[in-house]
């Protein structure tokens, strides 16, 4: 009934616009169809329905101060590797809203982020199959120039089963942000810019456990500060969480915290960034029994660069360990100026990035088994052990030689502790060295060619899984061995493109598994519309967006996709 009411409301809105004034419609459509075959060499299976389809359409409407929106979703059934929380067909989002200069109210579904998201972030990524939107009410107030106050109250989207399925717990919270230079007119022109903010988020979930007394209300709160001075920036946020026994932390009664600090300096031609993060027991969900990517209230960014080339982005990526980690990242981008010997006619850009993550250092509670505190250990921010979770050192050089010819060369050294952020079955650390050469050439008739040549070499192990030299007796490549990718993309004109890619794990220790993965794609783009058809083998791998990853099994078959924006 509720659905019906909100829908009617929207429809009234739509009609109102066509009678009186136009209003503004925006939105988008995406539809992906797959027909998959069985392929025993790469371990691909054929789904029983043979055909798979993911579709959605968003429609947003604004008219003066009024707005509304809805999304239809269909998973008939979902495409290969898409999370099982997506099933059926129906309405997956709907909201109405009103906003003026002082107040902005949204009723229904909404996405929201407080500060850097350590306390609350409701967001979606449709490609990934992630959607933890809230359903309830949000109020934003701007009582004075430079002051923003937000309040949210709602249920989270847990799954889609021909309609929204809500999580068990309720989420409510508030956030205030003060832009000091805007509030005080006398500070407006000052070089130093200051923004301060604070947030409070609480969840309520009934305690139905018969053995434990579980906190039914769990709060997270914290503050943040942002400073800018000429080319320098410094941002930091710290949040802390009350006792929150859950499946994630094995039902311990520790409190949690998370902090992220970012510092940067940049001027034209040079950018430097340093980040540090410390997280402990900070998994925060509206349902304490859920795991994986379900009903997370907060967002703990992984301090790693999001790579674009397929071997480095999808074989051994890293996702934050919400139960605890200490991480660092640094990056430098420098462009050697045009007209210099090294810069050449167009300048040369150098990029150096490094990131690492470690296990926190914890002092176990010696009486954990006998005392009734439920506190398993003590730790403090940035107390780290020498147990490595992740290391990534990468560099790239981009150079445009002539108006029509450019090159990017990149190198990646990555170590992933696969016992912690497991992405494959291999035990222990997986080390890899990857080289990528990308070349682009634009022809006179406006067509263009782009190629990527990628080589990934993994470490060698012996029968005891110890890392050994590549030429040691009995050495074999770890996991699935070494990989190479060759990709050639030809853009015929502004509408048509074709590409062919082959991924080949030439270094698999089991010779029968050294498979080629050819993949052909034809694409047609006109304005905001894109139609693509692909056919071939896709290897199993991790598909990641913004540090959230999902496993996509190997497949062999046809994929058709259509996207359009309006």
């Amino acid at each position, binding site marked *: 009934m509720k659905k*019906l009411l909100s829908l009617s409301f929207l429809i009234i809105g739509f009609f109102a616009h066509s009678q009186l004034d136009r209003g503004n419609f925006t939105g988008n459509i995406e539809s992906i169809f797959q027909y998959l075959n069985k392929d025993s060499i790469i371990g691909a299976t054929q789904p029983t329905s043979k055909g798979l389809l993911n579709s959605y359409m968003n429609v947003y409407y604004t008219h003066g101060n009024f707005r509304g929106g809805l999304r239809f979703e269909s998973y008939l059934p979902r495409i290969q590797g898409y999370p099982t929380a997506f099933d059926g067909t129906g309405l997956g989002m709907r909201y109405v809203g009103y906003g003026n200069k002082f107040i902005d109210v949204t009723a229904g579904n909404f*996405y929201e982020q407080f500060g850097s998201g350590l306390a609350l972030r409701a967001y979606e990524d449709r490609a990934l199959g992630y959607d933890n939107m809230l359903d309830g009410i949000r109020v934003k107030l701007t009582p004075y120039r430079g002051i923003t106050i937000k309040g949210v109250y709602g249920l989270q989207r847990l799954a889609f089963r021909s309609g929204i399925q809500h999580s068990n717990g309720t989420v409510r919270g508030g956030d205030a942000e003060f832009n000091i230079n805007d509030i005080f007119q006398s500070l407006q022109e000052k070089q130093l810019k200051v923004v301060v903010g604070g947030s409070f988020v609480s969840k309520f979930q009934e305690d139905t456990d018969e053995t434990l007394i579980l906190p039914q209300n769990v709060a997270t709160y914290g503050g943040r500060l942002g400073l800018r001075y000429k080319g320098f920036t410094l*941002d930091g946020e710290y949040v802390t969480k009350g006792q929150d026994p859950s499946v994630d932390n094995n039902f311990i009664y520790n409190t949690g915290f998370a902090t992220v600090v970012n510092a940067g300096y940049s001027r034209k*031609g040079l950018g430097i960034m340093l980040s540090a993060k410390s997280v402990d027991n900070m998994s925060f969900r509206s349902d304490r029994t859920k795991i994986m990517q379900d009903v997370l209230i907060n967002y703990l960014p992984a301090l790693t*660069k999001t790579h*674009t080339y397929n071997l480095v982005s999808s074989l051994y990526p890293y996702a934050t360990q919400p139960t605890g980690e200490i991480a660092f990242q640094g*990056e430098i981008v420098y462009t050697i100026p045009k007209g210099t010997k090294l810069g050449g006619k167009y300048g040369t850009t150098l990029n150096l990035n490094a990131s690492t993550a470690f296990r926190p250092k914890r002092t176990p509670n010696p009486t954990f088994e006998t005392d009734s505190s439920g506190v398993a250990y003590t730790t403090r921010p940035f107390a780290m052990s020498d147990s490595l979770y992740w290391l990534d050192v990468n560099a790239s050089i981009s150079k445009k030689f002539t108006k029509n010819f450019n090159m990017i060369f990149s190198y990646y050294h990555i170590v992933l502790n696969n016992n912690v952020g497991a992405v494959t079955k291999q035990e222990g650390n997986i080390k890899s060295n990857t080289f990528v050469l990308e070349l682009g050439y634009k022809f006179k008739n406006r067509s263009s060619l782009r190629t990527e040549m990628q080589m990934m070499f993994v470490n060698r192990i012996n029968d005891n899984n110890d890392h050994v030299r590549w030429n040691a007796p009995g050495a074999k490549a770890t996991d699935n061995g070494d990989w190479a990718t060759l990709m050639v993309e030809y853009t015929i004109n*502004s509408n048509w493109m074709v590409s062919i890619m082959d991924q080949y794990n030439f270094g698999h220790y089991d010779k029968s598994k050294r498979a080629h993965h050819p993949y052909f794609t034809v694409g047609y783009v006109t304005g905001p519309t894109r139609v693509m058809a692909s056919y071939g083998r896709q290897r199993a791998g991790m598909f990641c967006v913004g540090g959230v990853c999902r496993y996509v099994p190997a497949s062999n078959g046809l994929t058709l996709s259509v996207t359009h924006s309006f």
Partner: protein
Amino acid sequence: MKRILFTLIAISILSISFGQEHSGKDKSIPSVVLKDMNGKTINTAELAANGPVIISFWATWCAPCKRELNTIQDLYTDWQEEFGVTLVAVSIDDEKTKNGVPTYVNGRGWEYIVLMDPNSDFRRAMGVNNVPHTFLINKEGTIVYSHNNYAPGDEELLYKEMLKLKSN
């Protein structure tokens, strides 16, 4: 109950397509409050206040986006002189990669206005499926052209659209 729902849905879609016909091309920029790299708030509805604007959605992890914006960078001074156009590069990087935005933008020497859309609010409002997605907005604030994806040479299409705008 279900039948009623679907009838209503069908009606609403019809109403949408009807509305589309009416509004045609005079679609304006939705109002979303974003911050620039210096933390200054900007209402997207006011972007075209000082002449035509190119809005380009991008991310530090999106290779074709960077190809597009690096290509336009070499032409940007000429475009500004010829059309008085401003390019607004909207980064959809979230908290994971957001801090790399000023590093990349300044490291590359871009002269665009850069806005941060870390929770994709503006991206959603503009109906952007995936990046890169580029819009051309005239000085009245109306979207006159949009293009998804980037292939080398697409900047010439954008140039032609700006020529059309100028001759109108």
